[in-house]
């Protein structure tokens, strides 16, 4: 028996009450997913008649052909945009942030490094939604408006990535690096042969979290895009939801497509994702 269990004598009724309450809260949190999923397969008419039905009357897949084209762009393109933009920005984010955080933690006293650190901290403190507005002006000046490059570059910068890497690099014992220097290794060798191999696990964690976060991004994508051609799934979903005379079943089907990949990825890697999010946040 654990110390905790000894201290709080567990009464049976209390335990049942705790389970019942936990189940109620858990189901309330999961219900929107179930409702979304069921609604994607039911006709709008059927939902209006009985919104609470827990299973679709028939497994009607016709909606996915109906939303195969949205706003003049094919659904396949939105999916491809989401995959491409999220993957590219994740790879870029991991590489850029790992190198940057490594240099800033190894040599914090170098000229300009403190200023850069503060610049980054101010950036992440700035209300994100309001940062995106002047970013529009910057993209305009750089000629990146409406380009994939503009979206990917902007999405590559994030606080949690930086803090996770910084935390990891700080924990590498100085002796490891000193020993390598004594052995005659140059800085590139130290980074690529010693530090980065040690960082493989944290790199996977950062990549996973970045993928999940960037998949959900919508506002920068909307602001930097000129046409729906560069929209990702959440942006397509938002514009579909904004239309008048909304196609309810279609919206739910698109919400399913937007949610399912990341929900699945999270459930597969939940331990790593939650541990990473907790430690990345605690540092910030």
């Amino acid at each position, binding site marked *: 028996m654990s110390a905790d269990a000894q201290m709080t004598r567990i009464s049976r009724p209390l335990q049942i009450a705790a389970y019942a309450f936990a189940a109620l809260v858990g189901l309330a949190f999961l219900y929107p997913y179930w*409702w979304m999923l069921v609604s994607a397969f039911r006709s709008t008419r059927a939902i209006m008649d009985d919104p609470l039905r827990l299973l679709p009357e028939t497994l009607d897949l016709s909606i996915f052909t109906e939303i195969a084209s949205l706003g003049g762009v094919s659904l396949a393109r939105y999916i491809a945009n989401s995959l491409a933009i999220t993957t590219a920005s994740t790879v870029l984010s991991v590489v850029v942030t790992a190198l940057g955080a490594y240099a800033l933690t190894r040599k914090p006293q170098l000229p300009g490094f403190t200023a850069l650190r503060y610049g980054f901290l101010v950036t992440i403190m700035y209300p994100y939604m309001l940062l995106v507005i002047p970013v529009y002006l910057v993209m305009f000046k750089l000629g990146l408006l409406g380009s994939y490059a503009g979206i990917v570059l902007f999405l590559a910068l994030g606080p949690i990535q930086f803090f996770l890497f910084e935390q990891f690099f700080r924990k590498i014992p100085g002796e490891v690096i000193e020993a390598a220097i004594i052995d005659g290794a140059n800085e590139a060798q130290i980074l690529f042969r010693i530090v980065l191999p040690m960082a493989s696990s944290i790199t996977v964690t950062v990549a996973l979290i970045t993928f999940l976060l960037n998949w959900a991004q919508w506002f920068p994508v909307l602001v930097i895009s000129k046409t729906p051609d560069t929209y990702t799934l959440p942006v397509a979903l938002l514009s579909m939801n904004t239309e008048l005379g909304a196609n309810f079943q279609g919206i739910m089907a698109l919400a399913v497509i937007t949610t399912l990949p990341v929900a699945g990825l999270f459930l597969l890697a939940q331990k790593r994702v939650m541990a990473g999010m*907790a430690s990345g946040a605690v540092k910030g």
Partner: protein
Amino acid sequence: MTTTLETVWHNRIFYLFVLPFAVLTILFGVWPIVLSIMVSFTASATALRPNPTYVGFANYAAIFADPAFLASLLRTFLYTAVAVVVNIGFAFGMAVLIDSPLLRRGGLLLRLALFLPVVTPDVAGYVVWRWLYDRSFGAINALFDTVGLPAFAGLTTGPTAMISLLIAELWHHAGFYMLIFHANLAIRDRALEEAAHVDGATAWQRWRYVILPQLKPAFIINTVYALIQFLKTFTVVVVMTKGGPNEATNFVSYYAYQLFDQGRYGEATAMASVLFLIVIGVSLTIYRLGDREAAR
């Protein structure tokens, strides 16, 4: 001067490592912020020209003379205060329940259920909530009807719209705060509790004097995160209410965005600066209060 240059040259490889990160931070962080602050001092009509007309604090004076902005600011504060308390309270309760020996394995499932919405794209989550509240499609009113409760007005009246946003945001964010509390609970020193138990402390006393003080880091982090989060509430408004009904949910971020959309760049960026100062002020105050408490 030469010594600085020598240091830089000697460490050039580190500058090479940091270069891409520095470029991104400057291009998409520092520059837009500086630009935003500069635009807030220019006349909107000339803001995007190469030689804008600088108007001093005129935009700031204008927004503080705008009753709609002041109302929006007040609304944002009110919503933030309620949302922070509700979210932190709920997340704390859930973390304690998950950590308690009462749930055993069920704790992991509850943890997953609470955290899944955090990684669910917010647009998708809020779209579903918007329709859950709907009078003719929504499951919420259908459920209320079935169990004999009066209809819930949802997004159609001011006060219920606020509550509806709060619930949807709680669903999306609380799992994150729960995670922080839970992580803090997991690393606490259990030997202290055993010692208190041996000394005859009641369960309440153990919580109040042994466990809660150890959770202070989580309370501080969560409060700062939640304050920042809710002060800039935006996505949920865009998806669910567009500031309505009757401006009832028009928070500062959304109001600033509306002005930006109308080409009133000067006022929009002035609002951004004001919100930025509030966010920084609030975060620093909480951290400092936390430090002072710790120093006692």
